[in-house]
């Protein structure tokens, strides 16, 4: 799935990066970053309700190219500039974690297996 497709499904805003460039094949939803770090899957996106720079760092280490903040949470400029520096697309949706995961799942995205 292209990130542009996820933007539609989630009625999301693109806060930084070029959504048209990125393809995602699976998704991981969590507020605990070391749970996310235990999850390896190529070309995943990360959905989270946690808002701090470590979300972007976690994505960086895992080669995650798209981070989606749920429940309308707004990352500050420091977080967005870090994401720009690491070439990570950041979306924001008003949906809850549950609804956002459901929307992506219905759109054909799957969770992938834990490593």
């Amino acid at each position, binding site marked *: 799935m292209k990130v542009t497709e996820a933007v539609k499904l989630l009625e999301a805003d693109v806060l930084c990066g070029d959504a048209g460039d990125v393809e995602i094949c699976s998704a991981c939803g969590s507020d*605990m970053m*070391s749970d996310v*770090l235990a999850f390896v899957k190529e070309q995943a996106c990360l959905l989270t309700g946690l808002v701090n720079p*470590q979300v972007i760092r*976690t994505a960086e280490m895992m080669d995650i190219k798209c981070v989606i903040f749920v429940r309308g949470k707004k990352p500050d400029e420091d977080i967005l500039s870090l994401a720009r520096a*690491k070439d990570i697309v950041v979306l924001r949706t008003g949906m809850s974690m549950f609804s956002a995961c459901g929307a992506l799942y219905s759109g054909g995205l799957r969770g992938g297996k834990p490593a």
Partner: protein
Amino acid sequence: MGITLKYNVDGEDFTRAGEASGEIKKTLKKLGFPPETVRNVAIAVYEGEINMVIHADGGEITADLSEDEITVTLADKGPGIPDIDMAMKEGYSTAPENVRALGFGAGMGLPNIKKYSDGMDIESVVGQGTTIKLKFIPK
């Protein structure tokens, strides 16, 4: 190759935790190590760097790079780990509530480090500090 990288990790600044890991990742990528190796090193070192900041007031990370082996040493002068076997268990964490609110403290860090590395050795003395040595074989 024989390159050594050294970073000081600031224990006061949670927002900067991960800078050293990010630099190491960038360097490995630039040197042409395989993508899976680069990611394994990045994740393991990042977990170690976060641990230094949340449990040990910072420390020092040294990475020695050669074509057939990468070793990383994470050394801190924090409180030490009283029971290493316990600390290695998935889900075991002494992290306080404020750390959990930052997205850490699931008790997954050390098990993740073990999973992503090809060798892990922990030496820890209570009251003196902890040194973790990691080995990665590029493949």
